[in-house]
C-alpha cells in the first residue's frame, strides 16, 4: 500500500513537508515517494495529504495506478459541464 508520484509532478515542494511518514523526497526529474515508508496517511489523516495539496492532476497515483486527482478534478468543474462553462466564460 503506497502512493506514487509520476511524470506530471512539477517539483513544487508542497507535498513534502505534509507527509506524516516523511516518505516524500526530492529527486530528479521529479519528487518520489518511498514505498516502504508510505502509509497513505492511514491513522494520521482522513485525506491523503500529498494528493490533497498537489496542484497537478494525475501526478499522484495509487497502487492500482489510478490518479487520485483525475483530469478536470482540480478545476472544480465536472467534465460534462466543461463546454457550457467555456461558452459562459467566453461571453464575458
Amino acid at each position, binding site marked *: 500500500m503506497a502512493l506514487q508520484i509520476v511524470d506530471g509532478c512539477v517539483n513544487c515542494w*508542497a507535498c513534502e513537508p505534509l507527509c506524516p511518514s516523511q516518505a516524500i523526497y526530492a529527486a530528479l526529474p521529479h519528487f518520489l515517494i518511498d514505498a516502504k515508508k508510505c502509509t497513505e496517511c492511514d491513522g494520521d489523516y482522513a485525506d491523503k495529504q500529498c494528493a490533497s495539496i498537489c496542484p497537478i492532476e494525475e501526478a499522484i497515483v495509487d497502487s492500482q495506478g489510478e490518479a487520485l486527482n483525475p483530469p478536470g478534478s482540480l478545476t472544480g468543474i465536472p467534465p460534462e459541464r466543461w463546454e457550457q462553462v467555456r461558452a459562459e466564460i467566453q461571453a464575458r
Partner: protein
Amino acid sequence: MELTVLGQSQTTAPEAGGCASSGCGSNDDQLNHLPEHIRAKVHNHPCYSEEAHHHYARMHVAVAPACNIQCHYCNRKYDCSNESRPGVVSELLTPDQAVKKVMTVAANIPQMTVLGIAGPGDPLANPERTFDTFRQLTEKAPDIKLCVSTNGLALPELVDELCQHNIDHVTMTINCVDPDIGAQIYPWIFWKNRRVYGRKGAEILIKQQQKGLQMLVDRGILVKVNSVMIPGVNDKHLEEVSKAVKAKGAFLHNVMPLIAEAEHGTFYGVMGQRGPTHDELQELQDACSGDMNMMRHCRQCRADAVGMLGEDRGDEFTMDKIEAVDVDYAAAMVKRAEVHAAIEATLAAKQQKKNETFISLSSLSIPKKESRPVLMAIATSGGGIINQHFGHAREFLIYEANAHDVRFISHRKTDLYCSGDDTCGDGESVLQKTINALKGCEVVLCSKIGYEPWGMLEEAGIMPNGEHAMEAIEDAVAAVYKEMGEKGLLDKKPETKQRATA
C-alpha cells in the same frame, strides 16, 4: 558575464532604466497625502512609490515554490524563461543560494534597495524557506529592505514570526470580499489538512485575508493590496474591495489587468477568459481612486525579476554565473550608501524643478473650459525625456493632458515590430498590433518614426509627432495639448475608439 565590483567603478547615481517618465504622477504625487512616517518607509521602494521606481531597483528571489491555493489565472508549471508575469521563474533557489544571489546583485546594482519574496508559489506556504532567507539577509545585508507578497491564507498564524524579520511592507492579493465571486476565481484551497473546494474554500480564504490584513495594520506594517481585474467576474466588485481594504487600513491599492493567454496553460487562458481593455482598466482605477490611493506603475513582474521595474536583468545573475563570485559586502555597503545619497540628492533637485514646472504648466494659457482630456503615448528609453524611436519602443507610457494638468496614466506593452530577425514575424501585422495597443491615444510622441508606421498611425486616428525629441515628457505633452487647443481640436470628440485588450 562580467560582474563589476563596486569601488572599481564610478559611484555616480546610475541612470534610471526601465520606465522613466520624469514624474509618473506629475504634480499629483500619489504619496503626497500620506503621513510622513509612511512616506519615509516607501520613498525608496520602487513597487510602492512611483517616484522611486525611476531610480531604485528591486529583486525577487524564487525560494517559495509551494502554494496552498489554486487561482484560475495561475499555472503551477511555473518554469518558463520566456514569459514575464507573476508566478513564473526560471530557477528555483535554496535559501543559501538566494542569499548569495541577493548580495551579489546588491554589490553590482547598488540602486537595488528591496528584496521581495513573491513565489513562484505563496511565500507563506513555504515558511521555513522564506523565513530562513529573511533571517540570513537581516544579518548579512541590513541595508536591504525586505518584503513579501502573499495570498493571505496562512498570514494570521505567521504574522508574528513575519514581524520579527525587519519587514516594513507586505503585499496581499485580494481579488474579492464576496465568496460567490471567490468561487469563480479559486477552485480550491488547502486548509487544515484538507482540500476545500469552491465557495466554502473562498469563504475561508477571504476571512483569513481580512483577518491577516487587520493584524498587519495593527502591528504597523504597511500593506499594499493587489487585485487582478477579471472582466465579468470581479470587475464590478473591485470598487467594493477597494473600500473594504481601505477601511481596514491598507495604504495602497494596485488593480492589475488579468493576463490570460491559452499558451500559458492557465484555466482562464485555456477557457478563453478575456483580460480587460485599457479603457476598462483605467475606468476602474479611476473609480477606485476616489476611495483609495491607487498604484498605476506596476509591471506585474516575474517571481525572479532583477533590476528596475521596466527591465529584467535576471539572466545576468543565474546561479552558475554567481557561484564563483566573492562579495565583500562591507565594502559594497559603503558604496551603496554613496549611490543612495546621490539618488536622494537627484530626487531633491527634481522635486525642486517639478514645483517650478508645475507653475510654468499652470501658467500656460490653455483654455480652461470645454476642453476635453487627451491621451498621448510616449516612446522613451529613460530619463523622463522623449528619446526613443517609435519602432524601438517595447512599451509606451500613456499620459493624459487636460485643462489643468498632465498626469501619468499607465504603461502599455507592445511587441517590437522592427527587430529585423526571424523572431520578427510578419512585420505588418506586428505593427498593427502596436497600433492596436495605442487605441484611445490621439498622439504618439517619439524621437523618430518611419514612413510606413506614420501613415498607418494617421489612418488609425493617432497623430505621430517627432518634433519634441529630447524634451521633457510633461512639458512636451503640455505643449502639444496647447497646440491642439489652438487648432480647435479639443472641442470635438475624438474618432470612435475600438476595443483594445490590455
